[in-house]
Each structure stands twice: as C-alpha cells, then as structure tokens.
C-alpha cells in the first residue's frame, strides 16, 4: 500500500501524535503516555507516520526519539493539494454528468415505468 500524507493525517490519533511531536521531540514511550490506547497501537501509528516521512526516528543511546519532519508535509501537500482538490471536483462533476445522462436515457422512453430502485439493481 502506498503511504502518503493524506493517509497519515486521516486518523485523529495520528494527527494528535503529530501535534504533540511538533512541539517537542519525544521518546516513543513518552508519546504513548499521552494516550489511553495501547503502546503497540501507538507504535503502529508512529510506523505509518514514519513511512509517510512525517516523523523521523532517531536512536540516542537506549532510547528512540520521534522527531517531527513537517517540511515534507508543507511542501508536498501545498502544491499537490490545489490540484487534488481541482481534479477531485472536476472528475466528480464528470461522474454527475454521466449519471444524469444515464437517468435521462432510462427515463426517456414513455413505456418505461421502472422505479429508481430497480434501476439501481439493474446497473449492478
């Protein structure tokens, strides 16, 4: 599965982790102390954030520290966002246009008395 920034911050726990780490670089355990959920669950979230490049893990002696790497977030999302939003809107509009036409084509013949629900079943 491809990891990206959008996936990283789709989860509220991960957003909270980023918020905490953005203020202070913390050990894995110190991060986990901020949450009620299990340590392995937090580790999993941190692993995803690491894979997305938002967190860098640094080993210092016996401890592993989580450091925020937010520049990647700012850069990646800023320039891609505008286009993501633009194309999402456009391609949704295309879908709506095609759907509208489908409905019009199916409702056009006078003989057709099929209800909307049966049409949906037919499509699938």
């Amino acid at each position, binding site marked *: 599965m491809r990891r990206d920034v959008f996936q990283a911050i789709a989860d509220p726990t991960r957003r909270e982790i980023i918020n905490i780490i953005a203020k202070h670089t913390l050990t894995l355990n110190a991060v986990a102390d901020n949450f009620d959920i299990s340590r392995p669950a937090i580790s999993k979230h941190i692993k995803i954030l690491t894979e997305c490049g938002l967190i860098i893990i640094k080993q210092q002696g016996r401890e592993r520290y989580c450091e925020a790497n937010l520049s990647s977030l700012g850069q990646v999302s800023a*320039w891609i966002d505008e286009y993501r939003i633009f*194309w999402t809107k456009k391609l949704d*509009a295309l879908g709506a246009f095609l759907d509208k036409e489908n409905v019009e084509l199916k409702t056009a013949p006078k003989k057709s008395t099929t209800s909307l629900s049966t049409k949906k079943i037919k499509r699938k």
Partner: protein
Amino acid sequence: MTNEPFVIERVYNAPVERVWKAITDKNDMKQWYFDLSDFRPEVGFEFTFEGRNEERCYVHLCKITEVVPAKKLTYSWKYEGYEGNSFVTFELYPEGTGTRLKLTHAGLETFPAIADFAKQNFVFGWTSLIGEMLPKFLDKEVTVA
C-alpha cells in the same frame, strides 16, 4: 520536494466510448470541465481557458500531444506569463460495463507559482493545513466515496 506525478482515479457507470466523448466533445466538456471555444482530439490542437483561485485568474494554455481514441488523451498544460509546463493524461480502461478513468498530472513542480504557493503555505503554517484544510478535504472525499 517530490516529483511524482499526481494521479487520481474514478470508475464511472458508462462505457468507454461515452466517457471518451465526455472528455473530448466540446459540448459535453462544457457540462463538467470548461467552456472551450473549440476542441478537437487531434495531436497539435491548442486550446485555452481561464481558471481562477481565490486571488487571481490564470489563463491556461494547452496543446494536445497524444491521442489514442477511446483510450488515451494527453495535453500539455501551462499558465500564460509563467514558467513551467505540465502534462495532463486521461486514460480509459473498460471495467465491467463501466469505465475506469485514470488522470495523471505530471510536472506540477515546474511551476514557480506552485513553488511560491508552497513557500507561503509553509510560512502560513502546517497547523491550519492539518487542522482545517485537510480534514475538510478528507471528509469531503469520504462523503464522495
């Protein structure tokens, strides 16, 4: 900054020929895309349209570079008065009775306007990005899906 092209996919409940018409017929395009004075799916054909964000209006300059009927359409995409050039590719794949559309927008990092935007946004702060913009966007996407 990553140079990976931007990719987005959709599956539509319409055959490829229909989707092809929707992305290449001027009258269809007007319904969902842009109102162009003319459009012909031919290599070398050029078209322009205006698009705006909150601040200003950008004149888009496009030139078709590849046409494979009912399969693939590529055009260059740049902005009047700005450096940089990008390429937009629509690819259509039959999927059951419908069509999977894959849109690729490559070369966005070549736009200075985007670089400026990125810088501004970085100064503006990632908190509002994470805190407001992206969750809104993600919620919207979930609703759509």
